[in-house]
């Protein structure tokens, strides 16, 4: 029987209550402050949520009201979300790095009445928008630093609300419990705004049923134990974080751990050594890049050792995935490597205890994937969508494969329609877009199938394979299929390439815009004795362009002839969410980029050697300025010799 079928476990706040009763002293949520991990037991977790909830009730928060949290992962912000839900309200987490104009849209659309802000930075942002947010009544701040002399009556400290809650609780005994008991499985728990690669963000309404049933199904097919540690470092507004830190953690009684600050995540990860882990490809790629950069600074003997054991591990991993047996020499080598290289590397990465790690949100390059697996990290792919409560399919331990996303989780039906689009049905399908019924009707068919917008197919084993966004898959002018993401992922495996955007739909050949990775390309340039000042300067160096050309040629060698990149250029700024070129989850907004860089694309196909670009740059505080420059276009000399060599 599912938890949602019982009246006492049908909502997330009720599950918190269950945990507080079953395991009052167990670790519920933890945060690192002032260099020390501090634990809230399940009972303390519940008490905090209750007191805050009572405080919210005291200041007039009612059933159906919306509460937004904005900030880095902090227990207080999770308390706030659960407190709102306990009162029958809805949590609307927003991205902490959003600029003001994006926030206005989301907060107004969601009709947020209370904002819980982490610190002064977020309070300033909220205050600056006050006049444009008619529904907003109270801003609650957690960290009082810098706010001593703020006298706006809309501001309340977290402490004062909790105090008021305690008094309210004494005056109204049983109020919180009664309110929490009214919660139904089909109440909306949260509205997650999708970053939206096109147009304005859409508010995805997820019910308690969605979140609980999805987490239950996931736990059924994964090794999850009560008391496992989970690092809550993903943006709170991303549904993936909610699915784990609220969903999975409350249902499976995992301990959520909030890192000290965004800058310390890597170190906190190592200190904590989580038992389970989820990270988008960007993080895995970063880890690999960092390791390569650090590795290149090591002594020659260490480098040689690392290289030996790395190639051994990779060979063995390939053999294993082909189903071949390992020779005795391989096995001996691996055990020595485990002692000398693999174990220490896992320890450095903070993944020594991790029983499984997932990568999701976007495809991960197969070479990166294989690298981590060969080092003994159980890295697997997961596939999801905000509209499907973050989870659709995942891989079993024995079925890890970089090319698929595994099997659908239990009790979810997945099918491919005649156009190749992935459709699904089950308890994880969302309630609809908030205040956008017409869009909901376009997304969910009348008989309840959710259209994911992804093009995919099932392979022979029954694993789902995702090719690209259905609407991005195009054709080259000779009629052969063109899947931009597929090509970009190949390019992005180079440690020197941070982002790549490929074009080719309705065109004779494929071209790519490259944003270099400042860190690795910078290190490379220093080794070559090249002086540079900034990102722009570095990406204009002909030597760097030549080096990237070689990297592209390498990627081309793994691509079919027609899909190979023929011309490329190096962008003189990074693609940035503040400039709307990427979503807040760092996915390229392809159409927007195509429009913005239209002259560049024309120049690519017009055969020009260089192109003048005028770009608008948005700073974090929303100010804008323009950047004029000339960018050189390069040709890939010829992929042929490289291909033969490979």
């Amino acid at each position, binding site marked *: 029987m599912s938890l949602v079928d019982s009246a006492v476990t049908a909502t997330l706040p009720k599950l918190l209550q269950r945990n507080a009763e079953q395991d009052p002293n167990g670790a519920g949520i933890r945060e690192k402050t*002032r*260099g020390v991990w501090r634990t809230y037991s399940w009972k303390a977790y519940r008490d905090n949520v209750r007191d805050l909830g009572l405080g919210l009730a005291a200041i007039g928060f009612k059933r159906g009201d919306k509460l937004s949290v904005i900030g880095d992962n902090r227990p207080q912000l999770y308390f706030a979300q659960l407190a709102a839900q306990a009162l029958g309200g809805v949590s609307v987490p927003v991205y902490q790095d959003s600029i003001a104009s994006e926030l206005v849209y989301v907060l107004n659309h969601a009709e947020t009445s209370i904002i819980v802000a982490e610190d002064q930075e977020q309070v300033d942002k909220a205050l600056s928008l006050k006049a444009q947010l008619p529904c907003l009544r109270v801003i609650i701040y957690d960290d009082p*630093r*810098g706010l001593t*002399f703020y006298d706006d009556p809309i501001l309340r400290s977290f402490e004062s609300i909790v105090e008021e809650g305690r008094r309210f609780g004494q005056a109204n005994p049983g109020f919180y419990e009664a309110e929490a008991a009214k919660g139904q499985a089909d109440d909306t728990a949260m509205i997650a705004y999708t970053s939206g690669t096109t147009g304005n963000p859409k508010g995805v309404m997820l019910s308690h049923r969605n979140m609980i049933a999805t987490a239950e199904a996931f736990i059924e097919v994964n090794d999850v134990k009560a008391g496992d540690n989970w690092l809550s470092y993903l943006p709170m507004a991303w549904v993936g974080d909610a699915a784990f830190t609220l969903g999975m953690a409350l249902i499976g009684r995992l301990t959520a751990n909030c890192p000290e600050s965004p*800058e310390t995540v890597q170190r906190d990860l190592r200190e904590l050594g989580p038992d389970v882990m989820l990270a988008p490809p960007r993080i895995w790629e970063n880890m690999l890049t960092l390791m390569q950069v650090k590795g290149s600074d090591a002594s020659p003997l260490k480098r040689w050792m690392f290289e030996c054991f790395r190639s051994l591990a990779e060979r063995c991993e390939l053999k294993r995935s082909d189903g071949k047996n390992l020779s005795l020499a391989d096995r001996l080598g691996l055990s020595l490597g485990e002692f000398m290289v693999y174990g220490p590397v896992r320890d450095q990465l903070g993944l020594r205890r991790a029983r499984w790690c997932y990568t999701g949100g976007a495809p991960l390059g197969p070479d990166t994937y294989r690298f981590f697996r060969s080092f003994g990290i159980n890295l697997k792919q997961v596939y999801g969508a905000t509209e499907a409560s973050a989870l659709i399919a995942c891989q079993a331990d024995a079925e890890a494969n970089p090319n698929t996303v595994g099997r659908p989780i239990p009790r979810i039906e997945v099918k491919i329609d005649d156009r190749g689009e992935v459709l699904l049905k089950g308890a994880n399908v969302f309630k609809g877009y908030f205040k956008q019924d017409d869009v909901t009707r376009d997304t969910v068919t009348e008989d309840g199938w959710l259209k994911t917008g992804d093009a995919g197919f099932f392979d022979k084993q029954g694993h789902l394979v995702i090719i690209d966004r259905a609407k991005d898959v195009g054709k080259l002018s000779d009629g052969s299929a063109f899947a931009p993401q597929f090509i970009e992922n190949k390019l992005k495996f180079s440690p020197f390439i941070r982002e790549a955007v490929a074009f080719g739909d309705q065109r004779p050949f494929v071209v790519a815009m490259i944003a270099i990775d400042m860190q690795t390309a910078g290190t490379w340039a220093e080794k070559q004795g090249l002086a540079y000042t900034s990102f722009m300067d570095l990406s204009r160096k002909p030597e760097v362009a030549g080096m990237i050309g070689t990297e592209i040629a390498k990627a081309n060698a793994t691509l079919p002839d027609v899909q190979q990149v023929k011309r490329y250029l190096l962008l003189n700024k990074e693609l940035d969410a503040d400039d709307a070129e990427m979503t807040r989850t760092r996915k390229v907004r392809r159409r927007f980029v195509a429009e913005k860089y239209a002259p560049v694309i024309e120049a690519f196909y017009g055969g020009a050697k260089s192109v003048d670009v005028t770009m608008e740059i948005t700073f974090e505080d929303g100010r804008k300025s323009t950047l004029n420059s000339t960018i050189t276009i390069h040709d890939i000399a010829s992929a042929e010799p490289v291909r033969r060599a490979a």
Partner: protein
Amino acid sequence: MAATSARRIAAQQGDSQLVVEGVSKRFGGVVAVQDVSLEVPRGAIVSIIGPNGAGKTSLLNMISGFYKPDNGRVVLEGTDITQKKPSDIAALGIARTFQNIALFSGLTVLDNLMLGRHVRMKSGVIGSVIYWGMAQKEDIAHREACEEIIEFLKLQDLRKQPTAALAYGLRKRVELGRALALEPRVLLLDEPMGGMNQDEKEDMARYILDVNQERGVTVVLIEHDMGVVMDISDRVVVLDRGRRISAGTPDEVQRDPVVIQAYLGTGKGGERT
């Protein structure tokens, strides 16, 4: 801005926390500072400006006890500190940073901050060696205080880094942290933004304001960036060739013709130099 006005009112009402009365300092034939007086109200930010060689750093050195003035006296909260040793003055609650960063480059950020608390530590050598009871409790309390500063200055990710490996702007921030570790009531900052880029300057200005507002520390600042000085100071004192030529609110100083002629030199007060 509400924040600033509230602080200014408090500053105006407050008594003078630090008073410098007619101090002079000569080095051989060179007169570095001549008969300079200065009143620092409790909770204020007071800036000392002036061209190179005006005697700003010498004045700061006399307040912190590095130099003994030839004439005049320095009074902190009613106590004459003119003849006291620098370490005693530090213990009384005056901390400073230096124009040229003076950190222990081989030590970590945390250790540098812990050293800053040295004057507040009571356990002796023997107690510290045994490290039990009082000494241990004390160490934990000091660590806690340092962690609070680390959080305040957003140095969490650099806690265990040797300061030698840090960028210049960060080292300046660590130096501010070490001064704060002393739990000062008056903070003397000698060109905290020298050599910084605009971003780093803005950050540092924010930290100085926070130190002043959140921790209630009185600040005496030497700084060359006029934009910053005029933005954050409650009072500005102008020195030229060892003499005080003007003093007042930033507006008054910017309008003072003597100052414009001697220092800003542009004929347009308020322009950044």
